[in-house]
Every structure is written in structure tokens, then in C-alpha cells.
């Protein structure tokens, strides 16, 4: 009897198969929220991005098209291959500019980098209609109300964060007096520099006088 399951290299693990399937279905649902993304992905039809991650080991081949497909490996030659640790690849996926991030990372890119660049641009520039997605379940009025709450909440949260970041240093320095004021610290640093310079000059002068004294004797 030949049992290929005894050779793990021949078979994808069920967990990885499930992960790839879940990823594909999630991406398919998200793409439905922005028809422009689907048409831009269609332009990449047939191109394959192969990702080979380590720690934990995971391989993923994305064949682009209107509905991208995620398999462990396609028999066709990939157009672009990324090899690196899972954490670095995740950081690359979250990076605003993947091409700028690549040289700083330990990821190896081979093949056509333009595919990665274009795919990243499609994701970055996507404008998903989350409100439309919610409307399918709740109706338009409730979805719009929820959307408004989220948008206002986001604006309010951004404004509050900016205000806190502006006022926090003053509160800590002036009200709580846990830290010295910025001006005081700068003045102290200037004084310290002056003192260091004066000390260096004094040390040099002492050395010179010592040499002169020993020379005259």
C-alpha cells in the first residue's frame, strides 16, 4: 500500500487548506463591496503571486482575476514570488508602500515586482461600500444611520486624539509637574554644554601649564 499521507511534503495540511479557503471567501466578499476593485483585478487576469512564508510555514498562490483564487501552488509558473518570515510578510501586507518596505525587510522578491506594486495599489485605493453591505441585512435607513454614527464617531475620535496629543505634554509638565517644561530642559541642556566646554578648556589649560612647568624645570 502506498499512503501519500506519510509524506507531508506531498500534501497540503488541512489547516492550511482551510485557511486558504477562508481567505479566498473573505476576499471574494470584500471585492463585492467595490466593483472598481473587481474590474482592476480583472486586468491582472491569470497572473500569479506566490507567497512562501516560514515560521509558521505557509504557502499561498494567488491567481488574480475578477475573483482571485488562493491555492497552495499552481502548476503554472508564478509571475512574482515572495519568500520570507510570516511576520515580515504580514508587515509587508500592512505597509502603506510595500516597495519602500521591501529593502528594509528580509523578504526576497523574485519575478515581476510590478505585479506586487499593482496589487498593493488596488488594495490601497479601494473604496469599499461597507454601508451597502450592512444595508443588505438591515435596510438602507438603518445602514445609513449606522454609517453616520461610525463616520461621526471616527471624526470625533480623531479630533479627541489630536486634542489629547496636543494638550498632554502641557498637562504633564505644567499641571502635574511630573516632567520639566521643554524650555527648562533646553536651557539646562545649553548650560550643560557650556559647562562641558568650559571643563574641556580648563583641562586643556591645566595640561598646557603642567607641560610648561615641567619643561622649565
Amino acid at each position, binding site marked *: *500500500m*502506498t*499512503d*501519500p*499521507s506519510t509524506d507531508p511534503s506531498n*500534501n*497540503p495540511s*488541512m489547516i492550511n*487548506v*482551510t485557511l*486558504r*479557503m477562508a481567505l479566498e471567501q473573505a476576499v471574494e466578499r470584500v471585492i463585492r463591496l467595490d466593483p472598481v476593485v473587481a474590474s482592476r483585478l480583472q486586468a491582472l487576469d*491569470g497572473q500569479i503571486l506566490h507567497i512562501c512564508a516560514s515560521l509558521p510555514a505557509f504557502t499561498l498562490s494567488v*491567481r488574480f*482575476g475578477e*475573483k482571485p*483564487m488562493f*491555492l*497552495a*501552488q*499552481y*502548476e*503554472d509558473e508564478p509571475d512574482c514570488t515572495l519568500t520570507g518570515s510570516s511576520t515580515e510578510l504580514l508587515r509587508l501586507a500592512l505597509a502603506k508602500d510595500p516597495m519602500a518596505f521591501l529593502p528594509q525587510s528580509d523578504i526576497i522578491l523574485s519575478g515581476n515586482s510590478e505585479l506586487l506594486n499593482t496589487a498593493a495599489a488596488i488594495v490601497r485605493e479601494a473604496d469599499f461600500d461597507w454601508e451597502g453591505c450592512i444595508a443588505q441585512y438591515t435596510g438602507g435607513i438603518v445602514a445609513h444611520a449606522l454609517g453616520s454614527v461610525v463616520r461621526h464617531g471616527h471624526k470625533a475620535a480623531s479630533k479627541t486624539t489630536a486634542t489629547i496629543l496636543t494638550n498632554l505634554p502641557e498637562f504633564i509638565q505644567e499641571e502635574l509637574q511630573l516632567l520639566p517644561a521643554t524650555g527648562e530642559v533646553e536651557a539646562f541642556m545649553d548650560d550643560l554644554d557650556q559647562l562641558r566646554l568650559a571643563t574641556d578648556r580648563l583641562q586643556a589649560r591645566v595640561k598646557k601649564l603642567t607641560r610648561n612647568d615641567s619643561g622649565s624645570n
Partner: protein
Amino acid sequence: MSALKSASDHGKQMSEQHSGDKTHFGYKTVDSKEKEKLVASVFHSVAGRYDLMNDLMSMGIHRVWKRFTLEMSAVRRGQKVLDIAGGTGDLAMKFAQIVGAEGRVVLADINDSMLHMGRDKLTDHGIIGNIDYVQANAECLPFADNTFDLVTISFGLRNVTDKDAALRSMLRVLRPGGRLLILEFSKPKHLITSKVYDAYSFSALPLMGKLVTNDSESYRYLAESIRMHPDQDTLEGMMKNAGFVNTGYHNMSDGVVALHKGIKP
């Protein structure tokens, strides 16, 4: 408990039981010619809610089993694929996307109700142009020799009356080097899994069938036909006898389902 005992007893007989004019239909012994009609009536009955029932019965895991089959298929753009007993076209849909416009997928099923469901579903998903639908018996496939790069049959072989004839037919239509993948229920590897599986199959499945399709008998047949299907090693032996080489299998869910692979020399 009698059902459990009965299932266990029949499980021990895991071997191909087609002989002469008699074969099995679940636990019943029927005329070979009659089985085809009986199986057809089962699938006519369940076709409308086949996908829903598959999701309910397997708790969605059948999608992972099929996905594993897809990943093991090694199919590529431009190839020709035959999906026998393709039912509602889960695998055929993905194959059609992979082989692209220059490839070809044939979704074959002996049951016209299932074939109609599959065609409607795939057309609704925009799968057109590179797919054909053929009502065909797996025992005598209506295709020329050496036609396909890949032949798959998922959860269909156990319903075929003469499995040896079906395997020979699949070998004939495959190109040399082509691959056969058989996804089918099989024999659990561990006793505990077997006991739980039997209890689930003979109590929960007919109940679900009754509630969803108002047809508990079809799902009782499903459970019985699984027990009467050859186990992993027997099926692999049958593939070798038919002429396949590099045969092997991969157990999934502790052997509840197995994916058999064979290559045409």
C-alpha cells in the same frame, strides 16, 4: 443500538460486493439493473436541497474536503478536466476558473436533476464558455480514449453499480500521465471515531433528511451506502487492478473521507 450493531457488522464486510446480476443498494441486495433506477430516485428526491443538506450533514466540512481535492489536482491552464458525478458543480466551478478559456471542463452526472441543478448554479456564477454538461454513466463514459488530463469523482463512486467497469472507463478517457482523483467516504481509522460516526449517520442524518427534504429514506441509503463502499486499501487495490499506477490515498477527518489518487501509465 440495533442500527449501530448492524452498521458495525456491515462495516466489517468492506469490500466491493458487485457480483453477477446482484449488487447492493445500501444494505439491500438488488438486481444490478435495478440499482441504477433506485440511485436515480434518491438523487431526484434530494437534488433541490443537495447543497444545503451537504452543508448541514457535514457541518460545512465537505467544502474543505473538496478544496483539498482541488489542491491535489495539480490542474493547470489549458487542460481538460472531467468531473464525474459532479452534482451541483462545486469542483467543476473551480476547475473551470483554473483551466481558463483555453481549457475545458466537462461536468458529467448520470442524474438529470442533479445536472440541471449544477448547470443552473454554475451559469448563475458566470461559469460559461469553457464548460460542458453531459448526462453520462461512469461505467461507459461517452468520450474518446485519451481525452482528459484529470478525471475526478467526488462522493459518486459508491453509487456506481459496477465500480470496476467505472474505473476502467475512467482510465480509458484519461491521457497517459493523466490523474484520477476519487473523493469518497471511507472507513474511519480509529474505533472511537467509527462509533461516533455510526451514531451520527444512523440517527442524525435521516432526521435531518426528514426535516429538510421530507425524505429520511434517501439519507438512510446514504449512510448505508457509505458502509457498503470499499475501504481505503480495497479501493486502492481496485484502482491498481484497473490499470492505474502510483496509486495512493490521503485520509481526511480520521478516515471518514479519503482521497484516492492514481495515474494512467
